[in-house]
């Protein structure tokens, strides 16, 4: 193993690098620090404040977004981990005209203060993309990382069940 040779080819990201990624289908190239949190980039550089910050340690889900279709906590994802990838935030959901999840939340009282709602809806999106007719167990597992302090989850469960029943 040639250690010296290896040294030359390792890429290094320090301070600012140009992050190139898609947000809600739009390409962005932004100078950011490699370790900057995705949630801060979205809120402060892309000016999309629908994604919220609450715990900052991936324990509440308020910052949930889809990264290449996978649910992640934007407070735990660093800039270099997003390079070349595609992010879907709450603002990008439903822009194709399909607002089923949002409609279900509206009609079933799936939110009150609304601060967890962006993340919660993204988690529901990840769930119903994978399992269109989720069981109680599926719902519990899929939404276990998203805390809501207002609803007691009743309205959220009804919203998901409404989606499953197809009458959003």
């Amino acid at each position: 193993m040639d250690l010296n040779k290896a040294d030359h080819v390792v890429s290094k990201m320090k301070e600012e690098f140009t992050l190139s990624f898609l947000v809600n289908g739009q390409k962005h190239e932004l100078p950011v620090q490699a370790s900057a949190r995705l949630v801060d980039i979205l809120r402060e550089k892309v000016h999309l404040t629908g994604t919220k910050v609450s715990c900052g340690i991936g324990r509440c889900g308020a910052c949930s977004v889809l990264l290449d279709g996978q649910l992640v906590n934007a407070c735990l994802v660093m800039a270099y981990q997003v390079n070349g990838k595609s992010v879907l935030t709450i603002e990008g959901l439903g822009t194709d005209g399909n607002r089923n999840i949002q409609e279900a939340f509206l009609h079933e009282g799936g939110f009150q203060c609304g601060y967890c709602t962006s993340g919660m809806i993204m988690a529901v999106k990840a769930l119903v993309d994978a399992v269109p007719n989720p069981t109680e167990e599926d719902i519990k597992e899929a939404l276990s990382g998203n805390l809501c302090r207002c609803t007691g989850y009743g309205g959220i469960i009804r919203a998901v069940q409404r989606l499953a029943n197809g009458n959003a």
Partner: protein
Amino acid sequence: MKFNISEREGRVRPDGMAKVTGDLKYLTDLTFPNMLHGKILRSSYPHANIVSIKTERAEQLPGVAVVITHKDVPGMNRFGIIFPDQPVFCEDKVRYMGDAIAAVAAESEAIAYEALALIEVVYEELPVIDDPKKALAKDAPKLHPSGNILHRATFKNGDVSKAFDDCFTVVEETYELPRQMHAYLETEGGVIVPKEDGSITVYAGTQHGFKDRFQLARILAKPEHEIRIISSPMGGSFGGKDELNIQPYGAILALVTGRPVKVHHTRKESVWAGLKRHPMRITMKTGASKTGKIVAHEVRIIADTGAYATLGPAVLDFAVEHASGPYIIPNIDIEGLSVFTNNGVSGEFRGFGGNQITFALEGQINRLAEALGIDPIELRRKNIRKATDKGPLGQRIAPSNGALEVLESINALCMKQKEKQKQEPCSKWKRKGTGMALAMHGGGLGFGRLDSAGGRLALNHEGKIEIAFGFEECGQGLLAVIENIVIKEIGCSQNDLKIVIGDTALVPVSGSSTASRGTSIVWQSVQRMKEPFTQKICKRVSQLLSIPENELILGENGLWRVNGKHPCMTYKQLAQEMKDGSPLVVYTNFHFPTTPDAVIGGHYLYTFGGVKVEVEVDLLTGKVKVTDLDHVIAAGPVISPNGYRGQIEGGGVMSLGYTLMEEAKMEGGRYVTENFDTYLIPGIADIPFHTNVQAIEALYKDDSHGPRGVGEIGTIAITPAIVNAIHDAIGHWVQHLPVSSEEILEAIEVRRMLEWT
């Protein structure tokens, strides 16, 4: 999940679309050109003298605009809703870890943090009073000039000691309740924007904009009219944002720098500085006759109010008032103490002392029932208040049969549950149990407290029916309540309506968005305003169109002639017509309904709630899971079905957390739980999918007070109901919350429920 109130109207809440699309700007989402970021330096010790504060190194850091301390407070360096005893910045002493020493405004948050680390504070540590017992010791150091007792509240009736002598059974128990965190998802924060004329606009969540304005005026030494508070929307509050939090720091930083300043707590900062629910130690001695008539009730409450007063006195008064709940007990002796410590500051929290005292009270009733061998529901029936009985402090109250109606509904649910339980076999390693409890809860601030209410109704220049209240939308659904009431009472449609709240420049005085008073006040205000408003409009239109006034009605899109097919004049046309005339506006202001009897803090409008719950106790781990939950609520007509159900379900789960897992634990005056990794609130897997809400809508005959607020009532009965169900499952009474799985496991082992132990 059922609800006996079907969705009567398909309207979605007015703020709904913006919330589900992420478009709604919370006040912590705002940015302004040239904005600075503020951060606050909090104490390093729970109790210490400040020897010196040096800010020079921080000031010299590039990117720092200013560093401020107590020297920079223009006016009174104190705040507090009842007594202003909390320093904005400490001068010479810190009394808890959340005490502020200095604040920085910088070009970025990162620089602000760096600057905080450069502020040099020399402390001289003092002994930490981390328990009210220590604070009450004779030789305890005084935390405040007046000593360590913030407030003492008492209520006496009859002769308790004599009555105990005659009792067949007396039950005595001490109950301990933890410090609960509001855990609103949006932490405290906002932006303060200064103007060239010296005025400021404060964009920061609070439950009472005018109160913030009043408090800030004292701190800033500014007339109130130079301060505008924009206080809505909020990502949750639950009582926690009623007191000032970041506003004074942001305001001073903005005034000194002349630039907008954003301050937004991280979760950890929020935990350190923010309010919590009062931990209480409650001893109750309750005696009954052989037939189950409760005759004597002695109560001692010690509340840990933390370092400063905020609403501590009122919370204690509320607990004292509700110590006998919906039961008529002839001999009563209640004494409560609210005690200063070096722990986190306790203050307003949904339920307001009612949760703690009702846990103890309902625990007593259930223990008494067991001791007497009487069915707990029957025991309640024997002692429950009648509709026209006086209130718990002997004051006259608005008659209500809610207590008994709730009890009977809960009884029916319990019987059903027990039937169901018999048929469902339980796993070998689990035991199921059913429990119930009742709660009675006063709305409004109570006798002797300024409880101003009011609103404004107008046809504005855009042709909208504009209704304004000095309330805030914390998430509770106030906007939907306003919309539903106005549409029903005035007759206009959703599109004709403009709701204005949460901005001191635009709204009338309505009082605080607290104490389950919002719905009541909106309904009562509209009752007062609708006639004069309708008359004014009809009169004007009658003049303009020469149609008799009594043939005009307000409807969708405008005024209609009776039996007309279209509006004869739209609101827009009317607004055009009166462009130059006097505006069509009516106001109301009144005092929240109070008892005529001079009992300080005594309430007049009460709501009633009951819970039936099923739990499953895991014999291997001692863990308790709520598997079924029913609420019955008597609070008058339901205004907004989704909102009502959401308040009850959400309040219930918040208290499920309080009962089973939540504790903002402190050791030596320092928080052990600083974020959601250790401070656990219920997740979706912790709640029963079987949750029903049953609303009893009927009011007592001739009741003219309308629908009552339900922000708090759903949080109260659940705790004693769960504890009752645990007892039903394994025969063990819990008196310390949150329920410790360790304690339950010990009880299981003591009862030899596992053969190998």
